[in-house]
């Protein structure tokens, strides 16, 4: 057996791949579900916090900054473990899936709040003043003038952050979520062959490449002629 054959036999073993394909595919479905839930709830919550923060209510802002800094600094794995093993002591028993979703949504919320907030504060004061001088309310100014400009700046960092955090769905393995990496590594131990891991890697690329492309597309949509 040549070294090349040995390599393909180890990492791209057709028989093993075929056998574990259904497991990997079911993992893909779980990862997609988890990722969508995290992205939608995490970004929505982050935007909501940034909007709340723009109201400039001081004690509320202290709270927001504290929560955001906390979830930005804690390792996501720790949050998952805390929720999964900690909440049962207050008579809540979230599944591994729910624990992973909540944890990563909280982390994405924290990062996206900071990104949205940076976008909002980057809009010049003159924009607020011009809009308010024509009689637009605070909310109307925020929605029609400030946020459209803020979003344009937030899309690239938000796309990066979203991808980084949704890849963290792999951490769900520690609380028995059968997502891609969980399926791949159990297949790997069952077959004594790392080929399922390669399939898992391929699945991640197939899943996340469109997200990157979509991010670029949104970026061009939010650009304006200058």
């Amino acid at each position, binding site marked *: 057996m040549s070294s090349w054959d040995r390599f393909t036999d180890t990492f791209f073993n057709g028989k093993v791949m075929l056998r574990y394909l259904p497991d990997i595919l079911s993992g893909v479905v779980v990862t997609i579900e988890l990722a969508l839930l995290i992205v939608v709830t995490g970004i929505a919550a982050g935007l909501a916090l940034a909007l709340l923060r723009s109201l400039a209510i001081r004690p509320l802002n202290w709270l927001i900054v504290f929560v955001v800094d906390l979830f930005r600094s804690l390792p996501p794995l720790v949050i998952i473990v805390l929720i999964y093993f900690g909440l049962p002591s207050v008579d809540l028993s979230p599944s591994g899936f729910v624990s992973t979703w909540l944890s990563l949504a909280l982390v994405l919320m924290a990062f996206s709040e900071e990104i949205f907030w940076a976008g909002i504060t980057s809009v*010049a004061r*003159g*924009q607020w*003043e*011009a*809009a*308010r*001088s*024509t*009689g*637009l*309310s605070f909310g*109307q100014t925020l929605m*029609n*003038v400030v946020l*459209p*400009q803020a979003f*344009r700046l937030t899309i690239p960092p938000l796309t990066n952050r979203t991808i980084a955090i949704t890849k963290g769905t792999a951490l769900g393995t520690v609380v028995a979520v059968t997502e891609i990496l969980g399926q791949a590594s159990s297949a790997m131990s069952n077959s004594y062959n790392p080929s399922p891991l390669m399939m898992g890697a391929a699945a991640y690329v197939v899943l996340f490449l469109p997200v990157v492309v979509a991010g670029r597309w949104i970026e061009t949509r939010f650009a*304006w*002629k*200058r």
Partner: protein
Amino acid sequence: MQLTPIVDARGLHKHFGALHVLKGVDLRVAERELVFVIGPSGSGKSTLLRCLNRLEEPSSGSVVVDGIDMLDPRTDINHARQRIGMVFQSFNLYPHMTALGNVTLALRKVAGQSRARAEALGHAALERVGLADRAGHTPGQLSGGQQQRVAIARAIALEPRVMLFDEPTSALDPELVGSVLEVMRSLRESGMTMIVVSHEMGFARNAADRVLFMDEGVIVEQGPPAAIFESPAHERTRAFIGQIQRH
């Protein structure tokens, strides 16, 4: 002045922390009057203007515009601001909208006009500033002078009773100043009440009814342009006007 003034500000004080920017300013402006405010930077001219539509909250005093007490907490400030147009030094157009979008936003959201009606009014306002053919351009595609004229159109589209100009030509290249002053002159001819903070002395001389000289938070003196420019009563006014005219 016999008429009730359209702008009536009394005893205005404004503090920014330890800084006392306005020290008891009274300003009464009659309908159709064009009042010019000059003075060194930091004299409080812009702050005075911004107190009139409450972009800046006066520390004390009263502001009544077109019969509306601007400082009364019961006043619907957003409604009141429709009557007071404002033009800024740095234009402050919305970069993500076309010229027409800039002009129609408040018409739709504040004045409650339908999109079609707002666009008709918006086109008419752009026509008045000579930019009917630029309706579909974004600010980035317009020169500074054109941007400032769109900003004027944005304000006059709401049919304000008073227009405030905060150094409208200071950020413009010299060759673009004329087109903006031209629009202001035609606005004046249409009978618009205007309060203008600016150093365009030529414009002040032939368009203003009254010139105020401000320094260190007070109105030092005021009068017809000829009197202020040719025979100012105060030493500080004389020094300032001498400085400006040397340029």
